[in-house]
């Protein structure tokens, strides 16, 4: 599981984490992505990066399905804290409580925080 806790654009972590995720799809692993804290900002619709001249990788999350990566978990508390709802996100996800997310984290073999 990749645990995404960082906002996009301000640092490169979100983009380079996504690159790892795309590669991991080739290894037939049960890959899941968790988005919590500022990580939920990665999935927000309507990101336009032209004026800051930075690659807009937010549409790439919609390609994940084609890579057979379909387990995208978003923490409800993190969304609420930031005034966001599921409808603000660019891709279909499973919104879940922190408690439920913790259960899934605990079940992983490898957790990569990024």
């Amino acid at each position, binding site marked *: 599981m990749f645990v995404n806790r960082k906002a996009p654009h301000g640092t490169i972590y979100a983009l380079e984490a996504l*690159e790892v995720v*795309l*590669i991991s*799809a*080739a290894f037939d692993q049960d890959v899941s992505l968790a988005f919590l804290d500022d990580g939920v900002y990665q999935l927000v619709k309507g990101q336009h990066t032209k004026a800051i001249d930075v*690659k*807009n*990788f937010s*549409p*790439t999350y*919609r*390609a994940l399905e*084609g*890579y057979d990566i379909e387990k995208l978990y978003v923490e409800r508390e993190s969304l609420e804290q930031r005034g966001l709802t599921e409808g603000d996100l660019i891709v279909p996800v499973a919104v879940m409580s922190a408690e439920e997310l913790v259960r899934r984290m605990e079940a992983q073999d490898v957790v990569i925080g990024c």
Partner: protein
Amino acid sequence: MAIEVADKTYETDEEGYLVNLSDWSEEVANHIAESEGITMTDNHWEVVNFLREYYNEFQIAPAVRVLTKAIGKKLGSDKGNSKYLYELFPYGPAKQACKIAGLPKPTGCV
């Protein structure tokens, strides 16, 4: 490095990928294909255009496996297989077709 098409010069990297993706045109594509020993047919264009649409939508060049599957979905299973795609693009449907499509090199280097 650079290529010259119709009196205009376009910058490429050492592997022949366009440096500025906005430089792409059908003429440039034809030129790149030629230098790779490929004569573009409708079947080639179908894949190249598919790649460009995929890139526009998702902002990445797909991995071969993903490309094959997606083409199968859109153009039928007789085209969505690696045999067909490798016949069109002997050096790899992802790498070579992306180059002709004016896209960045796929980040699929496992």
